[in-house]
């Protein structure tokens, strides 16, 4: 009797939204589309910013090319014309080729894109290894510390991570070189401290891969240690925020074991702000690559940036800056999409 009445009542309940299956997928598609458009807007801003940034330079832009022997006077004249043309004209030329793919580096005399291409893969290797290690270990520590807040593990890990968080990654690199490359006291100097691969070896061979790994260990550790600490602190904070939530009480009351409550309910919810923050901080890890590659003479984009700065090669700097910024934009878009997939509240 009561149930029948309840059914009548429920059907007349005002529903805020009809949960239709198609609506969910449509919502995700629409969200991705919107996000890409927003990303385009950011890209426009960045292109503008990049353009004006490098037009604030003092001095005769063409003068820097004089040092390069391999450019003919005719090419030099062409470059000077390009660089001294009125700003709107320069801007149009810039838009046609924002990455300055044809731009000539004032330091090496080569096309900028050749330089960038050649140095890209070591940085990918380094950042790939670093990110995987930092995210996996950092998030694991953060989950354990946050879930068991106040425990000895929490206190010790928080202290240690705070210490590493405060460490400049390039200094850690220097320290690692001191200990494990040069060797001091009873520390073995077994790792190389320069380059990414011993010369003459094919990078794709087994020998090549071990050599690359050998050269990448120390720089990766230097970077990973610092960013692992940051990710761990972020994840811990997110877990602690979730601890007081009511739905965890419901899950426990159902008779679920503690670690399952953590795994099935707390962690997925806590990952949402964590993912956002980790991707937001990708910019910092790219910055870290610049200094660490410099310390280890690791021939990637980071070292290239340092060299461009030292040699005042503004064309190269412009291209690199754009590459870095676009990577961050792309990663932010990916992050937003990943979160939209996990969190249904955003899609509808």
């Amino acid at each position: 009797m009561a149930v029948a009445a309840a059914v009548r009542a429920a059907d007349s309940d005002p529903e805020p939204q009809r949960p239709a299956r198609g609506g969910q997928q449509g919502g995700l598609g629409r969200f991705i589309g919107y996000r890409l458009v927003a990303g385009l807007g950011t890209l426009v801003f960045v292109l503008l910013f990049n353009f004006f940034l490098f037009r604030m330079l003092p001095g005769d832009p063409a003068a820097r090319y004089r040092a390069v022997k391999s450019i003919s006077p005719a090419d030099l004249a062409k470059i000077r014309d390009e660089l001294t043309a009125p700003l709107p004209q320069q801007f149009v030329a810039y838009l046609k080729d924002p990455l300055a793919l044809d731009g000539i580096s004032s330091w090496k005399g080569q096309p900028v894109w050749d330089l960038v291409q050649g140095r890209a893969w070591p940085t990918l290797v380094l950042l790939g290894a670093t990110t995987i290690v930092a995210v996996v270990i950092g998030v694991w520590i953060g989950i354990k510390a946050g879930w068991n807040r106040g425990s000895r593990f929490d206190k010790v890990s928080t202290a240690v991570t705070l210490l590493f968080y405060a460490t400049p990654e390039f200094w850690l690199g220097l320290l690692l070189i001191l200990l494990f490359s040069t060797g001091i006291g009873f520390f073995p100097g077994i790792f190389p401290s320069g380059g990414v691969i011993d010369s003459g070896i094919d990078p794709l061979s087994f020998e090549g891969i071990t050599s690359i790994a050998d050269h990448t260990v120390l720089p990766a550790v230097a970077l990973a240690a610092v960013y692992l600490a940051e990710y761990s602190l972020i994840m811990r904070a997110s877990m602690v925020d979730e601890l007081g939530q009511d739905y965890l009480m419901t899950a426990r009351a159902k008779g679920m074991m503690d670690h399952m409550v953590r795994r099935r309910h707390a962690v997925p919810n806590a990952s949402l702000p964590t993912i956002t923050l980790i991707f937001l901080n990708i910019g910092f890890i790219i910055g870290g690559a610049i200094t660490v590659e410099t310390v280890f003479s690791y021939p990637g984009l980071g070292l290239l940036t340092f060299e461009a700065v030292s040699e005042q090669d503004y064309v190269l700097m412009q291209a690199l800056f754009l590459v870095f910024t676009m990577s961050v934009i792309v990663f932010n878009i990916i992050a937003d999409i990943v979160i939209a997939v996990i969190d249904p509240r955003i899609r509808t």
Partner: protein
Amino acid sequence: MRRASTVTTPKKLSPYAIARMRRKKSLQRFAQAFFGQPAGVIGLVILSVFVLLAVSAPLLFDREMLDITETLGNESLEPPNGDFWLGTDENGRSILAVLVWGARASLVVGLAASLISMVLGTLIGIGSGHYTGLAGSALQRLTDWFLVIPFIPLVVVLAAVLGQRGLGTIVLVLGVTSWPGTARLVRAQTLSVEGRPYLERAKVLGDSDWQQMTKHVLPNVMPLVIANTTLTVAIVILSETTLAFLGLGDPFLDSWGTMLDKATGAGAASTGAWWYLLPPGICVILVVLAFTLIGRTLEVVLNPRLGSE
């Protein structure tokens, strides 16, 4: 057993006196809460040590000890010994002396740049939160766009492009790039404060935009801004160290980052000159740690929701 308090007729206090008493009480409560957190106390202690060192640098080590023309007679890159407790650098200068003077440089740059960032971030944050419509969303867009640009590459490029290597350049570059984080936080706070009823009343009673923002929003926003700025100092000091290491710092400044740059240039890592490499790095870690601990403690103390750690 509760006893009824002896009733005395209270003195008539002026509203200013009452406000002052209340402020003193809340300051006392804040101090109690802050010092109850061991992390905050540790941070404060470490910071005080370094501030003391920085302030008393001239008393401990003569400025001339940093002048490389004066130190030509000394052995270069000597390990620590009786005369030079931390050894000497490649120019024969006492590393300990440079280290203590370096505290000044790093702290001054950190605080100055963070101040700029705090002012910029607060202005833009309150503006974007308060003004609805075109102005507000323009400011918000600006903040979001700046947040996308990767920090170190931006800082490096700006420093490289501005040419003039100097203390002012560094402070300017770091100050102008660190505000988005603060602005975002301030905007969120402003929106939350402006949603409260008493601000509606203030508007109805005729408070101008400026009055609303300064009299009502600003005092509510300040505590979190201070906590956030403390954390910004930590990041700024790390960034200045990075910039100096990459050769973009002020070559005459002798900050800890410059020390590391010179150390690398002198091949300290490959020749095992640990006395040159370790001390500046350790100092940076300690100072950054101190500001981070203080900042985190302030956040916990000022935001009751984050409490109960």
